Structure formats: structure tokens, C-alpha cells
């Protein structure tokens, strides 16, 4: 019922104009042969406007990657998916495989976690990009090669010739990363999903990649979903941020507002975990980082109440029995907590 009461304000909340991607009540359940487990995503709803950068924040196991795979239709066969994912007013979940193939890579594409593993070791890097273009657009080999080189230059790679002809093992981590981005951008998609894509990079390269992603986003107007577990990366980068916990969205809103005034106790806990350089402003009296006690709950289909309740510092008796619906405390922000702000 929480969802219904909030559908209305949510429509006005979304940015002006039509949303590029409209996810409604998305529930994904992994099931093994004889056991139905708890949903990995529970009634997730959000919008992305064209050209927006949405940061998705959450610890491992919170359903971030499942969400990314669901948007691309790449969930394994033992998943049951409910809800709707409207992309440019077309329900992705109702599409057949051939329509999926037209959309993947061309309209929605993905930058993977470890580019060293997501590139085939036995194909030249340039060919792997060219193949993506070939799959989506007619054209001959020569023009494709030119296009590829343009894409490689677009991700700020110099020595395009060398990189075009190289095998993945001949490139450095940063170069591989840019190649992975080039792959995702090869067909100028409207939506790019980056799943933990800066995890394996060192800080300087990470900053370069973030700048590059932002620059491409601004230049081409393609929306970006940036999935990470590190809140520090999102500040000043994402337009909006969405915090996930145990398969649900606990809070979403404009990055600056969420980071300066977090509403959900989980978001507060996460933000306090960023170590600051200035003499330990966020350290406890014992001089330690304030950890969130407990760990992700074992997913259990029969559980009632708020999933964060066991770890929550502001819990009340009410929290145990009923799961909180999303509420809209102020324009553009939504939070799933009975006691937000306390």
C-alpha cells in the first residue's frame, strides 16, 4: 500500500519531460530446483531522465548487479521477474530475444567490472569493438574501422593504431578500462550501465575514468547508471543517488541533498563510514570508524517488517511488524523508513 500512496507524488517528482527508463515494482527472485528463495530485488521503482547520471549505492548482496542485469535482460534462466521496465515507452520484460539483441549494445549497454575478463583474450581489441558496430549497423569493414578508431579516440586513447591491433593482455589496466568504455559507447547508446567499473583501478586512474564518463555523459547526452559500493565516488559525480539495501531502495534523491542531509538510518551509517582526512571528524570516541552493526540479513521470503530493523539505531516496535513504504518527505526525495530524520 505504501507503493500506491506514493505513485502519485512520484510522477511529479521525476524530472521534467519523459523518463528514459521507468522501472516499476521490479521484483526478481532466484529459485533453485526445489526451493524458492527470497527476492533479490523487491518492488524496486525508479526513473532515469535522458542524460542523467544515477548513482546506485549499496553493499555487496544488496541487489545492485541483479538490477543491472535485469535492465539488460541478462538474468540467468532460473530467475522469475515481475514488474515493468519501460525503456523509451517499451516494456523490456515483454520483448522477445531478437528485439533484446537490437537494444543491447545499441540503446542500452554495459561497462563491466573487470575489463580484463570481459574482453575475449583471443580477439584483437579493435575487432571486438568493430563486431559490436557490425551487429547493429550495416556498413563495410573500412568505415567500421574508422568508426572504431573514432570511438577509441573518444575515450581519450592515444596510439589508436597500436590499441586497435592489440590483444587484451598487451594493454594496461587503464587502457583496458577505456577500451571497455569504448565498447559500451560504440553504438552511441541512450543508457550506459557501469557496474562497479572502477573497482580494480588505482585512485588516479579511477579519477580519470570518472572524469571521462562524466565528460561523455555531458557531450553525448547518454544517461548513465553508475553502480558502486563507495559513496565517495558519487559525490560531485552523480546527479541523483539511490541507496539499496537487501534488494530494496531505501532512499533516493539528488546527490547533494542526500549526502548533506541523509534521511534513512542506513544512508547515514554509510556516509559516516567515509574516512575523512581531517582529524577524524567521523570517528567514535575510541577513535574508530562507526561501523553499522550486524550484516545483511539472510534473505528469507517470510520475513515481515523492515529488513534494516535488526541493525537500525532508530527502530521502534512498529518496524518489526510492518515494512515501511516509500514516502516523499520533500520534492525529489524518497525514503523507506517510518522514523526517517530521527
Amino acid at each position: 500500500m505504501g507503493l500506491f500512496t506514493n505513485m502519485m507524488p512520484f510522477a511529479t517528482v521525476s524530472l521534467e519531460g519523459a523518463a528514459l527508463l521507468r522501472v516499476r515494482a521490479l521484483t526478481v527472485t532466484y529459485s533453485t530446483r526445489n526451493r524458492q528463495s527470497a527476492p533479490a530485488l523487491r518492488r524496486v521503482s525508479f526513473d532515469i531522465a535522458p542524460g542523467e547520471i544515477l548513482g546506485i549505492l549499496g553493499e555487496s548482496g544488496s541487489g545492485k548487479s541483479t538490477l543491472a542485469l535485469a535492465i539488460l535482460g541478462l538474468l540467468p534462466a532460473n530467475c522469475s521477474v515481475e514488474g515493468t521496465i519501460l525503456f523509451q515507452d517499451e516494456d523490456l520484460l515483454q520483448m522477445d530475444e531478437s528485439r533484446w539483441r537490437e537494444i543491447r549494445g545499441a540503446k542500452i549497454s554495459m561497462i563491466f567490472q573487470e575489463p580484463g575478463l570481459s574482453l575475449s583474450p583471443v580477439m584483437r581489441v579493435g575487432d571486438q569493438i568493430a563486431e559490436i558496430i557490425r551487429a547493429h549497423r550495416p556498413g563495410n569493414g573500412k568505415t567500421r574501422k574508422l568508426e572504431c578508431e573514432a570511438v577509441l579516440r573518444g575515450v581519450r586513447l592515444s596510439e589508436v593504431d597500436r590499441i586497435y591491433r592489440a590483444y587484451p593482455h598487451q594493454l594496461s589496466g587503464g587502457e583496458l578500462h577505456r577500451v571497455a568504455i569504448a565498447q559500451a559507447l560504440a553504438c552511441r547508446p541512450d543508457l550506459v550501465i557501469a557496474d562497479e567499473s572502477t573497482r580494480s583501478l588505482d585512485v588516479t586512474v579511477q579519477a580519470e575514468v570518472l572524469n571521462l564518463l562524466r565528460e561523455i555523459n555531458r557531450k553525448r547526452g547518454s544517461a548513465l547508471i553508475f553502480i558502486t559500493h563507495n559513496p565517495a565516488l558519487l559525490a560531485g559525480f552523480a546527479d541523483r543517488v539511490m541507496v539499496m539495501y537487501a534488494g530494496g531502495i531505501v532512499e533516493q534523491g539528488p546527490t547533494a541533498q542526500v549526502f548533506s542531509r541523509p534521511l534513512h538510518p542506513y544512508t547515514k551509517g554509510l556516509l559516516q563510514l567515509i574516512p575523512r582526512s581531517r582529524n577524524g571528524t567521523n570517528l567514535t570516541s575510541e577513535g574508530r570508524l562507526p561501523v553499522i552493526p550486524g550484516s545483511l540479513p539472510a534473505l528469507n521470503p517470510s520475513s515481515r517488517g523492515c529488513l534494516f530493523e535488526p541493525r537500525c539505531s532508530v527502530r521502534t516496535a512498529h518496524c518489526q511488524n510492518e515494512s515501511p513504504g516509500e514516502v516523499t518527505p520533500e520534492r525529489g526525495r524518497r525514503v523507506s523508513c517510518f522514523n526517517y530524520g530521527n
Partner: protein
Amino acid sequence: MASKRKIVAAVMFLLSLHLAILLAGFVAPYDPAAQNRDFPFAPPTRVRFVDAAGHLHARPFIYQCVARPDGIYEYEESRELRYPVHLFVVGPEYKLVGLWPSRVHLFGVEAPAQIFLAGTDNYGRDQFSRILYGGQISVAAGLLATGTSLLLGLLIGCVSGFYGKWLDESAMRLAELFLVLPWLYLLLAVRAFLPLHISPTQTFLLLVVVIGTIGWARPARLIRGIVLGAKNRKYVTASRSFGASDYYILRRHVLPHTYGILLTQAALLVPQYVIAEVTLSFFGLGLSEPMPSWGNLLANLQQYNVLVSYWWMFLPALALVLVSFGYLNVANAFHERLQSGST
């Protein structure tokens, strides 16, 4: 680089064997069906360098073989005339690779002498020529049956590994059934079930199909394993996320991983299937006279007097051993090469 030289040597050896068999008409001095009723069971002709008078000759020569007047199937050399062995002589007409008619043979001697490098059989046919021609049948049967097996194995293994579920389950149970079947008896049963007198081409094709279809299970299981591993690679998911189809992923990201297994399986299967053909022909269920195959050449040994009296009738077995050795040697050399490369 010792291993590299080993590979080259092994491959060269195998290639030369195949070349000799392929160009049987050129390498063999006589027509495999030409009979010399005067010389049944003649022993292999001795190639000599030193003549009866003790003189050394640079060019090898032979003495003419003549029947001993007092014996049956007993021969001696007539020492009167030397018959030097010439290269590229003109002899009986044949078709090279079954296509180009020619009369030139690799070696030969002038009539009336005849050179029987591996002796003759009960009709006085030159065994050396028959072994070479017989190899065409036996080795071709082995190669084609291997091709059939691997193709079937590749298809079933790929589909079963890639699509999984009930397809995989049923294909693998079927594979297990085929693995426990005693193939030799199955072959005998299938062959015995069919009419005895069918044309040689039909027999040949039948052999190939039967041997080839029975052997698909092992390669299919191996390939399925490879496919299972390959299809879950990150770059397969990645390429799917860029719009790749199943067929594309199979072709570009999965199949290349199976080449190694296919090669080693081929090296192991070919000799096995050659032996299968030989076995069937030996029992008279394969190709029959006058068409030579290693199996029906060896079938002569079923007669007791041949078995004990004429040792050269075992020589087709030597050819079989050489070819089997050639294949296993290649497989072994590659194996060593890969081992040394991985350390």
C-alpha cells in the same frame, strides 16, 4: 626447441605415410589385382648390392625369382642375370589419386623379372602394392569415420553444453549408453544384420557410418565440458550485453576453445577406427576381394598353412602398426609441447 623438432619429425613421418598411401598407384610397382599364377606365395625379393661373383654395384639390383622344379610354392633366385632397380619406370597404367591416368611408377625392374618387396599372396599378387592400395581404403575409412564422430560429438556436445537443461540431460544419458556399448560386437551385429552382398562402395560407406556414429559419445562429453566452462566466461556475458546472438557466441567465443580437444581426439580416434575397419574386414564383414584392405589382406592368416609358413603375410599388420604409431606419436609430441609451454 627440442619439442618443436619432435613435432616436425612426427608430423613429417605421418605425412609421408599418408602421401605414400594416397599416391599408391605411383609408389606401387604393380596393379594390386594383377595375378601371377606362377608365383603364389613368393617370398619378398631380396634387393642386392653385391652380385654372385662378389662384385659391388652402386645401383641396387635383384635376381629373377623362379619356381623350383621339384617343389610346390618353393622358389629360388636365378643368378644368371642382374636386373637393376630403376626409378621412374614405365609400367602398368593406373590413375593417380583415382583421377589422372599415368604409367610412371616410382621404381621397377625390367621384365621378365618382377620385384615383390613384400612377397606375393596365394594368387601371386604383389603384396607391397596391395598394402599401399589397401591403405587407401583402411585409412580413408578411419579418417572419414573420425570426421563423422567428431562432427556428431561437436554438434551434440555444443548444444548440450550451451543450452543445458533437459537437452543436456538426455544427450548425456544417451552418451553414457553409447559408452558402455561394446562397439565391436555392435559393429558385428549391425553388419551381420544387413545383406551380405552389397557393392563395395556401399560397404565402405556403411562401415564409415557405423564406426563413426558409434564413437560420438566420448568427444561429445569432452566438448560439452569445454563449452560449459567457456559459456560462463565474463566476456561471453559481455558480448551478450552488446547484442551478440547465441550462434555468434558459440562461433566466436566457445568453438575456439574446443579446437585442442578436437585435434587430440582426432589423433586418438583415427588409429582406433582404422583398426575397427581392419577388424571388420578381417572377419569378412567389411570390404571383400578383390578390393584390398588391410583387414582382408590379413584375413589370409586365417588359414593355418599361411599362418605358419609365409611370414610375409603378416606385413600388412606392420603397416597398421606404423600408421597407429604415427598418429599417437603426433599426439604425444603435441602433448609434450603443450606441457613444456605451460611451465
